[in-house]
């Protein structure tokens, strides 16, 4: 491959020049060195930065978690698994986990259903299509903290907009800041507000990749619009659905911003009814306790949980995409679609929780690895 051969400046002389002496010149040696070393130089900034700000902190979390470690006092004695024992013995920790799952379920399921519905509306021969697409994406550019403040007001227990609206249809005011489940619904609504339109665009992209022949065939078979949607569209975009669910899982288990702004103290209410695990982590580390050791134990437990759920997701996804293998044409297309959406969504998707350093979790759970070096196809 020519890319790899070192630069050779061809001798440009008229007439039968004598062969240049077989001496490896400095520039040539430099050129060879250039070819050999350049790729490593090009990938190294990313790996160095990731090692310092991503990998090292993650590994070091485990180290901190087995020590007495205080925000002010710094590193203390090695205490083994004591921090873990303490965390697991705290009812607040378990409550925060339950809250996290509850909010996650309330945000992901309606979100996926709504997003698919909106995508189906958008996947038509619309006038001013770009206008509608931009319209559904507006909430995405509003910071989650701002969304939370605005919705916190709309979900006010007294004279809140939502309660007034409920009053019009004859429903009693809901205690959004006092009832546990209601508060979860309110917080999930904030997450949904920001991410539904975004996911709708991902689904829309998947829908547009569905071969139109399938719809034509369905029409010939006498299928109506609704039947087409459930028998053609939904099965065809299944891979994308799975992908969106996976990414929202990784983000949804780390909800933080919305809870912090939901009330004045931002720690999940007087009874920690809507405190998520990441907020709990924050409270242990930077709140009253200032206990880095214990907070690290929380982080590590949550880390194991997120990765574990990610693995389960991955296995389920792989099984589903393998079973597609029997229907060869469809499956290849779907696999490709997943890669494509992984690409699109990975680029775009900070997880609903609002991410932190190191970048959002992306597409790795989707069945992408076999496409990771597409250059080799050639």
């Amino acid at each position: 491959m020519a890319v790899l051969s070192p630069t050779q400046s061809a001798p440009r002389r008229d007439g039968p020049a004598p062969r240049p002496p077989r001496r490896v010149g400095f520039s040539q040696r430099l050129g060879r060195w250039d070819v050999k070393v350049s790729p490593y130089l090009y990938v190294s900034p990313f790996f160095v930065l990731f090692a310092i700000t991503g990998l090292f902190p993650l590994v070091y979390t485990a180290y901190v978690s087995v020590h007495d470690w205080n925000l002010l006092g710094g590193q203390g004695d090695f205490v083994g698994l004591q921090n873990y024992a303490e965390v697991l013995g705290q009812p607040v920790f378990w409550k925060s986990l339950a809250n996290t799952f509850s909010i996650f379920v309330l945000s992901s399921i309606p979100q996926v259903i709504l997003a698919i519905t909106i995508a189906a509306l958008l996947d038509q021969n619309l006038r001013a299509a770009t206008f509608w697409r931009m319209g559904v994406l507006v909430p995405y550019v509003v910071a989650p903290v701002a969304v939370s403040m605005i919705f916190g007001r709309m979900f006010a227990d007294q004279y809140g907009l939502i309660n007034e609206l409920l009053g019009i249809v004859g429903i009693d005011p809901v205690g959004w800041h006092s009832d546990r489940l209601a508060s979860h619904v309110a917080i999930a609504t904030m997450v949904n507000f920001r991410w539904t339109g975004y996911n709708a665009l991902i689904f829309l992209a998947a829908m547009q990749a569905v071969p139109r022949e399938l719809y034509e065939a369905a029409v010939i078979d006498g299928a109506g619009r609704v039947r087409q949607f459930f028998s053609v569209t939904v099965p065809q975009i299944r891979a994308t659905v799975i992908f969106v669910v996976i990414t929202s899982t990784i983000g949804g288990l780390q909800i933080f911003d919305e809870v912090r702004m939901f009330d004045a103290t931002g720690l999940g209410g007087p009874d920690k009814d809507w405190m998520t695990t990441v907020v709990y982590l924050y409270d242990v580390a930077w709140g009253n306790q200032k206990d880095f050791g214990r907070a690290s134990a929380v982080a590590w437990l949550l880390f194991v949980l997120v990765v574990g759920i990610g693995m389960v997701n991955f296995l389920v996804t792989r099984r589903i995409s393998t079973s597609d293998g029997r229907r060869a044409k469809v499956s290849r297309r779907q696999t490709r679609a997943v890669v494509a959406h992984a690409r699109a969504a990975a680029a775009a998707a900070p997880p609903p929780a609002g991410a932190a350093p190191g970048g959002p979790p992306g597409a790795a759970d989707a069945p992408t690895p076999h496409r990771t070096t597409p250059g080799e196809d050639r």
Partner: protein
Amino acid sequence: MTSVAVTAQTAGKRAAADAARRRARRAIGGAQRRPGRLTYALLGIVLLISIFPLYFTLLLGSSDPVEIAKNAVPQWLPDGSLFDQFATVISSTQINFWKALANSLIISTVTSLSVVFFSTLAGYAFAKLRFRGRGPLLVFTIATMAVPVQLGVIPLYILMSDIGWVGKIQAVILPAMAAAFGVFWMTQYLSEALPYELIEAARVDGASMFRTFRSVALPAARPAAFMLGLFWFVQQWTMYFWPSIVLNNTNPTLTLVVQSLQANYFVDYSLVMGGIFLVTLPLLVLFAVVGKQLVAGIMAGAVKG
């Protein structure tokens, strides 16, 4: 549909041709008539829900706090008193609005440029160059995308505090300067959009490796790089978790301004809401200008699929 031109930009000529053909087929098949009024009505409702919360901030920002406490929607149209709230927020000594705006701008701009540059560099190497360990390194990069690195905040904080960066924006910038997904995104893009022939031609002409990157790969990567930069900009602008830990109100970002509005003025809702609109405004302006590309970026993958 994404316009064919955009498709050509993002996915190359072949995909553009495909899209054009698909569109033509749609027209012939007749399955895609113009949708009825119901579709537009439903989309209108969706749009209303998307926009209303922002409009709501304008309404509350124009109202009297006493009225807000008694009415869900104190008035239906914003008025001039909104600007009083803006003025109060901007001039408040507790808020540091200008500093926050400058900080957010610096953080988002610097990290976007850096992510785009490093991702293009690494993506180019992964997509087009051969070197020992390329496969494993790429797989490693992709695997890290599934890892919630956010959970490493405690050691990251210890690190920042050891080097004296707590309270400084470098502490926010450094961890956001590289992104695994950016590398993945550029690798995917360049492996399709950049023909080997171009690289070879540059090499034959005697360009050094870096010159080849600069003159051939960088121009080819431009559309994808722009989208990547846009996403990263929005992401950093709206980020709260890490800045809230490592920065404070004397040197805040705009998301921290929201927090101090909550903390300092929670009784004065009109001021809080006016401030929130002000904080959101810069991204809304950006969105008005490049929202189309943002949409195209999110959908780009599927056009290629």
